């Protein structure tokens, strides 16, 4: 290969990458937070025992689990405003889609985690006189959490990678800024290599921490 690598021009645009990184991390954290809270609520609705609540919650989860994130994102940006008769900024549409997508998967993780705790643990907690919330907080939650750590972290990693999709609706994340830099410098090879390195530098430590946590909790 005779290609002459030259990162000089690309690094000249470093501030753009910084801005992009800010958007990427911001979107990841906010959508993960909203997604986890919504996911927890969905799990509660699914376990409420009332079909009026559990059926819509299951439907929501399955719709977002069984369609691609990119389709959801584009749909939220182009189709949802038509349906609801409102305008959504690219940011809002992107945040909505990513949060709902995350919520579906987080809900599934919470449900699976709670299901692994034996029913006898609820019996024992109730028999002592604990109310459902106390039982969840003191007995069921701590046991389920250990099982949930690994899938939660890998979902968070996916969530961060999925934010790259928001560039499609012109949210200036890392990938979007990369496209800007690439068209300004005509150096896509260096640009996308730089972007890949940045993603890797963030995600590799996270997956390693997850591995350590997983090992510690599976005594």
């Amino acid at each position, binding site marked *: 290969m005779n290609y002459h690598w030259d990162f000089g021009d690309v690094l000249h645009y470093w501030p753009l990458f910084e801005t992009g990184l800010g958007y990427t991390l911001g979107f990841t954290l906010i959508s993960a937070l909203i997604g986890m809270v919504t996911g927890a609520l969905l799990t509660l609705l699914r376990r409420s025992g009332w079909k009026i609540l559990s059926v819509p919650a299951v439907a929501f989860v399955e719709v977002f689990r069984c369609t691609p994130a990119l389709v959801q994102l584009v749909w939220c940006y182009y189709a949802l405003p038509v349906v609801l008769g409102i305008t959504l900024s690219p940011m809002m549409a992107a945040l909505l889609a990513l949060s709902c997508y995350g919520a579906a998967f987080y809900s599934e993780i919470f449900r699976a985690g709670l299901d692994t705790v034996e029913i006898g643990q609820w019996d*024992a907690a109730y028999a002592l006189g604990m109310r459902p919330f106390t039982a969840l907080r003191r007995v069921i939650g701590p046991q389920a959490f250990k099982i949930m750590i690994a899938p939660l972290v890998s979902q968070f990693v996916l969530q961060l990678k999925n934010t790259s999709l928001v560039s499609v609706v012109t949210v200036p994340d890392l990938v979007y800024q990369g496209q800007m830099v690439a068209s300004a410098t005509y150096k896509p090879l260096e640009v996308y290599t730089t972007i890949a390195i940045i993603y890797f530098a963030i995600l590799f430590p996270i997956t390693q921490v997850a591995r350590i946590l997983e090992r510690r909790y599976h005594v």
Partner: protein
Amino acid sequence: MSKEVMIDVVNLEKSFGKHKVLEDISFSVPKGKVIALIGPSGSGKSTLLRCINLLEMPDAGAITINGKTMDFGILSLRYRTTELAAFRAETGMVFQSFNLFPNMTVLENVMAGQRFVKGISKDQAELIARPLLAQVGMEGFAASMPQRLSGGQKQRVAIARALAMNPKVMLFDEATSALDPQRVAEILTIMRELAQAGMTQVVVTHEMSYARDVADIVMFMADGRVVESGPARQVIEDPQEERTKDFLKHFHAGCS
């Protein structure tokens, strides 16, 4: 004093779907007495026990424990979780599968009720928990995790955990069924000591000799109904009903 009624169950009914598990069950237990529920598996005795502390919600009837009455039926209000929890706190329950909390040490298990239900401080709860661990012979294991204990040890801790809430009634759901024969005797000894100390007990058991020697009342159930009930020795030694005789045949064959 001994005439005082601790448990009063009236016309209790329970179905799982279309399957009737309990049909018109009525009985009462005087304070300080032990009642043993015996019968073939599927007779409804475990469900009845779980109904007494509302782990299963009865469909109809009423239960009174220590003067507090809960009514069940379509017309009765759906009880709030706080009311259910308060009613359950009056009874202690010991399970066949122990159900110790694996995320807590032995001591923390025994303190859990005091701390998380009554909201008592850790130090105070420990003052209650340690003597109970000593009572069941587990004081040396306070800092152990439940996973490290044998079945018999787990069950002793589970008894201490239930006693820590200072219950008026203890419910034992086949508490010895998952144990080796030597361990069974240890648990039965603890239960016998509790009975001698005046604890009202409802015991679902396959241990006929325990039922005969320790229980005051024996109630034989089959197909969700009470077939025969009376003084323990009389029901075990001289059953009147055919079904009871048939069920106890194996036990008596083993004795003679």
